[in-house]
């Protein structure tokens, strides 16, 4: 096994114990994953295993074209086939005018705008009957010229106007007919910044659209029960999206719809965040009066994707490496607005390396001019994808820094350290920078890379290259909906009633660690209940690496309330005041006196159980994340007022990677990598799993994942055609390294983050963000050519870069 560095946690222990916590007996420990036994025995509760008696199956008829008019749609033959219960089209009253998410219709009416857009839905007694009937639905299309180029799409006179009439008109740039929205950051004096520069670099760098490509498709099963509807959905959250969208589609009041999440979402990566089959299942179950199962197994690679980003960047620096100015135009596109609006907000954040409602930054950039366009195109649906808006933005940004370092003959580390924003400074958006772990993680990654020694000598025509990158990733939290319940039983068991989903990132496990640490009780006695909107409060949801922060904070608050309740009941029984009590190993005792203690059960008697609640303590007046644009000036991106939208944490990471490339064949092997992160680990094993797994995921995208598009039709629409990395694409066990370098003193320090649970940060998305620029840097180091597009590791890419293809 390679290096597994974890920063010392010693200074933290006593401070935690002094506050009545367990003193890191459960927090920051390598506790076994709570799902482990169910996973290894094949008994984990995945939604795909959710069947119901008398259930109906479905198959969607989807457009094979990116842009086409539907000239005829004939379902009559399919309707006569055995087993068919109903076939729905946009003309069916149940679906007419209904929207799925954002401005996407549930079923296309007369025209399709992206490959895999639904045009009809077959509901049948068996999956086979549904499949056969879907084949028998006759759809005739008049194929149009598709618009896929995100740069051309935002022109004043684009090759094509995608939606007529326009679905969304932005507040300005309205003269660009495809533009949905644009975002700006204007800071300092851009002209002066470039005039001050000794070196100016200008380039266009592209990050491809990519699929989430989880292997178990997202699914939903809806079951009517009287006037209630039960809906099991394979999702990363149950409250913010699946619940209201399914209720709206099926026209069911929210209180009559119980959305039930899985024990573990079977791989999410952002793709099981919003675009789930829940609305379809609920509507079809209501319409047929029977349970209905919908599986998105026929559009798994197209129902959600990372946006395709083309970045035009110009940066200026002094000869000593200090940045003077940056000017960027970002271009992304989407067939419907859905999530792309918010993705663009993140794109802006990534350019200045600060979340626009956040208060942290990565590098100083005194003069900034940033313009981003989000346009309608005929590409497949776009949605949040791990590292949402940041991974794609960091590739061009960090690559330009590496190019500048080369130009100035500086080390890749030194140029970054020179320009890092310092704690307490203001970002390009006038926001205060706090909790900055960039220096530690960048130094550690570089140190581990240097510990590899000189590059190995390899036989011709092989060459070796090494690359380096830094990065950061916001974590967007839920400012209002953050409530959990703890059910205390008189046998000392605590049930966590919270909806933060485990999506493989270990949420079930670390929730238990937070409770055990905060309550100072055995972790074996902590459990988590199934997630169901019927009785679970709207807690944090597993997106944006927010669940650790949100849920952890609410758990700590609930534990405080739980102790207060237990102490109030125990005090008269122990004959002391409640303020003299503490919990130790699940018992309640007089402080420092184990002889005077009683069990929870005795304290609670005669009550069998009780419930306490906890929530996150946001500052009064903090804006709700769901309430609109926050208080940043729209035209300049500058933060206004005492509160701006709050980033829960900014996660800092760094990667270094070594590759071997055959200059004759273009073959490429990743031979070593290191991933570092500044998160204080709730569970180091889980953190390292995320860091190494995220690096794999990001490398897979940087190396070869790509869509091949032919006039809007995606040629790579199954996992058979879309290359995902296997074990053979990666280094051996001893060559995989990680380093956890937590930011110290935050929780108890003078400038504590207001919202971090014991100083912990979310980690799940940041881990993917910095690897592509490090990989591209390694490719350049090996062959001397800067890749200008991700992916850049296929044989074709390498040979093309070398002028041989």
């Amino acid at each position, binding site marked *: 096994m390679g290096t597994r560095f974890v920063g010392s946690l010693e200074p933290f222990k006593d401070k935690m114990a002094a506050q009545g916590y367990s003193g890191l007996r459960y927090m920051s420990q390598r506790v076994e994953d709570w799902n482990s036994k169910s*996973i290894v*025995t094949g008994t984990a509760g995945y939604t795909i*295993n959710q069947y119901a008696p008398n259930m109906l199956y479905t198959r969607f008829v989807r457009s094979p074209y990116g842009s086409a008019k539907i000239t005829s749609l004939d379902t009559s033959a399919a309707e006569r086939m055995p087993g068919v219960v109903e076939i729905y089209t946009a003309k069916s009253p149940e679906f007419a005018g209904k929207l799925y998410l954002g401005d996407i219709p549930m079923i296309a009416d007369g025209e399709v705008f992206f490959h895999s857009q639904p045009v009809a839905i077959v509901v049948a007694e068996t999956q086979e009957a549904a499949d056969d009937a879907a084949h028998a639905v006759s759809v005739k299309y008049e194929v149009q010229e598709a618009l896929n180029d995100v740069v051309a799409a935002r022109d004043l006179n684009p090759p094509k106007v995608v939606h007529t009439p326009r679905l969304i008109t932005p507040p300005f740039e309205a003269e660009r007919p495809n533009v949905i929205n644009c975002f700006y950051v204007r800071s300092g004096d851009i002209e002066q910044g470039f005039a001050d520069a000794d070196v100016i670099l200008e380039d266009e760098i592209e990050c491809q659209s990519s699929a989430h490509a989880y*292997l*178990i498709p997202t699914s939903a099963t809806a079951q009517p029960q009287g006037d209630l509807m039960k809906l099991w959905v394979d999702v990363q959250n149950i409250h913010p999206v699946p619940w209201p969208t399914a209720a709206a589609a099926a026209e069911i009041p929210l209180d009559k719809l119980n959305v039930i999440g899985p024990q573990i979402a079977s791989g999410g990566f952002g793709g099981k965040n919003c675009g789930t089959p829940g609305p379809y299942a609920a509507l079809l179950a209501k319409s047929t009066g029977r349970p209905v199962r919908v599986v998105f197994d026929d559009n798994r690679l197209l129902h959600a994707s990372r946006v395709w980003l083309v970045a035009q960047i110009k940066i200026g620096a002094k000869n000593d490496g200090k940045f003077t100015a940056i000017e960027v135009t970002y271009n992304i596109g989407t067939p419907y607005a859905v999530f792309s609006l918010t993705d663009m907000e993140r794109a802006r954040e990534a350019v200045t390396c600060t979340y626009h409602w956040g208060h942290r930054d990565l590098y100083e950039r005194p003069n900034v001019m940033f313009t981003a366009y989000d346009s309608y195109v005929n590409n497949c649906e776009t949605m949040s994808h791990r590292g949402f808006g940041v991974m794609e933005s960091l590739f061009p940004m960090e690559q330009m820094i590496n190019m500048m370092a080369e130009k100035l003959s500086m080390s890749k580390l030194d140029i970054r350290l020179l320009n890092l924003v310092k704690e307490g400074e203001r970002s390009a958006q006038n926001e205060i920078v706090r909790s900055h772990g960039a220096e530690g993680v960048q130094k550690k990654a570089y140190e581990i890379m240097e510990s590899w020694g000189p590059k190995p000598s390899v036989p011709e025509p092989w060459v070796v290259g090494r690359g380096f990158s830094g990065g950061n990733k916001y974590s967007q939290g839920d400012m209002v909906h953050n409530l959990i319940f703890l059910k205390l039983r008189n046998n000392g068991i605590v049930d966590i009633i919270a909806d933060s989903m485990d999506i493989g990132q270990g949420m079930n496990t670390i929730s238990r660690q937070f409770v055990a640490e905060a309550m100072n009780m055995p972790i074996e006695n902590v459990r988590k209940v199934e997630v169901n909107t019927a009785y679970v409060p709207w807690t944090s949801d597993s997106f944006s690496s927010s669940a650790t922060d949100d849920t952890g904070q609410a758990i700590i608050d609930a534990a405080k309330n739980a102790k207060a309740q237990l102490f109030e009941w125990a005090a008269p029984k122990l004959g002391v005041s409640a303020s003299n009590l503490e919990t130790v190993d699940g018992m309640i005792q007089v402080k420092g006196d184990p002889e005077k203690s009683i069990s929870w059960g005795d304290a609670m008697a005669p009550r069998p159980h009780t419930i306490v609640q906890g929530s996150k303590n946001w500052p009064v007046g903090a804006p709700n994340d769901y309430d609109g644009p926050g208080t940043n000036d729209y035209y300049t991106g500058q933060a206004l007022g005492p509160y701006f939208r709050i980033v829960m944490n900014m996660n800092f990471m760094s990667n270094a990677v070594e590759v071997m490339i055959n200059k004759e064949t273009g073959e490429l092997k990743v031979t070593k990598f290191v991933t570092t992160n500044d998160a204080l680990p709730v569970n180091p094993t889980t953190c390292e799993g995320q860091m190494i797994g995220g690096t794999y995921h990001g490398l897979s995208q940087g190396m070869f994942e790509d869509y091949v598009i032919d006039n809007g039709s995606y040629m790579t629409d199954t*996992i058979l055609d879309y290359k995902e990395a296997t074990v053979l694409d990666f280094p051996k066990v001893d060559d995989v390294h990680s380093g956890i370098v937590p930011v110290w003193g935050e929780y108890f320090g003078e400038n504590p983050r207001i919202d971090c649970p014991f100083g912990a940060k979310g980690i799940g998305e940041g881990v993917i963000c910095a690897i592509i620029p490090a990989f591209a840097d390694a490719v350049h180091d090996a062959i001397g050519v800067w890749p200008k597009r991700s992916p850049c590791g296929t044989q074709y890419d390498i040979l093309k870069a070398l002028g041989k293809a």
Partner: protein
Amino acid sequence: MSEEKKTEKTEKKGVSRRGFIQGAVAGLVVGAAATYGATTMMQPPTATPKPTGPVEMVGPVDGKLITMTINGKTITKYVSARWTLQKYLREGVGLVGTPEACDNGSCGNCTVLINGNPILSCCMLAMDCADADITTIEGLGTPDSLHPMQQSFIKNTAFQCGGCTPAFILAGKALKDKKSSPSEDEVREAVSGIICRCGTYERVVKAIMEA
């Protein structure tokens, strides 16, 4: 859809395969209940779904009764000619530990052992498995009595979402049954057909080598 229309449709279409499908649904509901649970408590499950045992069923014309040994138990059930082994295991026998994944032989997540060899159950027709000896993840060990390979996966936390884990465990077992101390390269080769999107490969290799 109106109540009247619904009744008319159901009668008119008189689903010919309804009988066996209902049989299949009954079987799979057993599996679903055991794994997912009517209980609301999300404890790590302690009961492994059991095959439902020999069943006398007469199906329609597109299939026939097939006998297989599944996890050491002889099971005779109706098998449709178009069912893959994956579909039969999940929906015919109720063994949902074999996931429904890519369904075209590219991800390896539905791997089961046929006569000791790892096979993609989504690319194998159930009909072709007559008299075969099949091992699924449910046949390996129970939470109270885990197979060493399962124990090693837990020790190494060689999973995240768990979608691919049954496949890796079975492929690892098949390799170890043939060679008790495989090299790292041999382990990599043996599991190279299974994709893990969470990126747990390094731990998977380590878990198999240490098992």
